[in-house]
Every structure is written in C-alpha cells, then in structure tokens.
C-alpha cells in the first residue's frame, strides 16, 4: 500500500491526468481505502471547480468601461501622431 504522503504528493498530477498508468492505479486503490486522502482529493476537486469559475473573481465596478475609455483616448492620440 502506498503511503498517504505519496498520494498527496501526486494528487495534482492525478487531477490533471498526468499521472502514469501505474501511479493512477495506485492512487485509485488507495483512495478507495483511505477516508482522509479521499476527502483531500474530493475537496481539492471541488475547490478547483469554484476557483476555475470566472465569476469567482470580480473586477471593480466600471473597470471595463474605464479601460475602453482609456483605450479610446490612446487610439485617437496615436492616430493624430
């Protein structure tokens, strides 16, 4: 049986689908039998769903309008030159 430390160390690799076939099988076998590691795996997956959602990070109100206003000015200035 692979140790919990080894499983945790390879967790990202496994989540990204980069683990070798052998490691993947070891991890899956371990997760079935280890409550702690399966909690870490499952919560990391859930965390990635939340943080991967663009809506989780808000830009300040009016950011986009100010940016494009700034660009408008810049573009018309550079045209004059």
């Amino acid at each position, binding site marked *: 049986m692979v140790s919990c*430390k080894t499983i*945790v*160390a390879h*967790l*990202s*690799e496994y*989540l990204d689908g980069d683990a070798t076939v052998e490691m993947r099988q070891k991890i899956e076998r371990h997760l079935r039998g280890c*409550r*702690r590691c399966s*909690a*870490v795996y*499952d*919560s*990391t997956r*859930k*965390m*990635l*769903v*939340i*943080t*991967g*959602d*663009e*809506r*989780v*990070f*808000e*830009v*300040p109100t009016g*950011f*986009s309008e*100010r*940016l*494009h206003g*700034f*660009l408008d000015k*810049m*573009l018309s200035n*550079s*045209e004059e030159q």
Partner: protein
Amino acid sequence: MMPSMEEEELAERSSEPVLIQRILAGERDLFHDLIRPYEHGAFLLAYSILRNHDDAEETVQQSMAKIFSHLVQLTERDKFKQWAMRVIENEAKMYRRKRRQHLYESLDQSSIEASDDKPFYPKQFADWRDLPSDAVEQKEVREAVAKALAELPDIYREVFALRDMQHLDVAETAEVLGIGESAVKTRLHRARLMLRESLTPMFAKPKVSVWERWKGSNPWLAAKR
C-alpha cells in the same frame, strides 16, 4: 475594401491573428475587440501580483497601451494571449518594485522561495459539502476565495491564477512567468493544497449533532440503532 468570402472564412477560423493583422493595417478600433476576452484575466493577473485594485487597474491600462504599441513586434500571432499576459506580468512586477522602493523593502522573497521544496502536508481532512453550481454567486464564497488567495505567497498565487483560474496550460504558464515547467507544476500543487487547506473550514460539511441525526431519520430505525 470589403473582405472577400475567403477572408471571412479565415476570420472565422483564426480570428485573433486576423484581428491583429487588421489592426496593424490601420483598423485601430479593433484593438478593443482583440483585448476584450482577456480584460478579466488581465486584471486578475495584475491583482494577484499587486493585491490592490487601483494599482491593478492602472497596470492593466498601461499594459494595454504597451501591448498596442508593441503589437507589430509579435511574431507568433497565434500566441497573443501568452504574450499579452507576459507583458501584464512584467508591468505589474515593475510597478510592485517601484511601489516598494517608495514604501519599504517588503518581505524577502528568498524566504518564500526556499519553502518551494519542502513538501506541504494537509491538516484538514473534513469532507466538503456538495456545492451548487451557482455557489460562486454568493458573496461570502467569493470573499472567502479572495481572502485565501491573498494569503498565498506570491509565487504560488501567480501560478494558480494563470493555471487554475485562467486555464492556461503548463507550457503557457511557464512562458508567461519565465520559469520552467517543473516549477509551474510544483508551485501549482503547493498552491492547490494550501488553498484547499484554508478554504476547508468554510466549505466543510456541517457537523451533525446526535439530536439532528435522530430528528432527520426514521425514528424506528433510530431506535433500533
């Protein structure tokens, strides 16, 4: 001149290089369209480095001006995103250096870099509850994530913002940050574990008391237990 059918087809297939071509040929206003898909990510990246809304916004504006004036130098036009993010990353770091000179010498980065190799092992093992797909629309969820991100050391936050929030791949992230792919993987792994750790209290399944459990279940079954 009206674009021909073929040109329109080409625009469909690879609109970004075509947009760049048209901007350079004089249709400057198309620059708005070119950067629109990236403004959110640009702000996120600048903010992840500067951790201040005003500084991040100013940096994004200055970076976009730079991106526009250097657009002609971009040789691989299908790599606009990586290139643009790299410009933003450099601008934000320059801004941070300038700001630090004015304020104070901030945390010694080397002490943080040194912890790169030390393995991180979780301490929180509570199960997370199932989160609805609109969980991110709750203010307290967004605030908890923002706080957890802010607490991450810079080198981990940058990698996480690019890889797991903006969904760049490992090679693209390495290119933007000017670091090796193995450093991206190590830092990303560490960032994920640290974020999971600090968010676990917020998202853990509530501990159910004996009374609650009894109330929620069939009293006859509960009695048999």
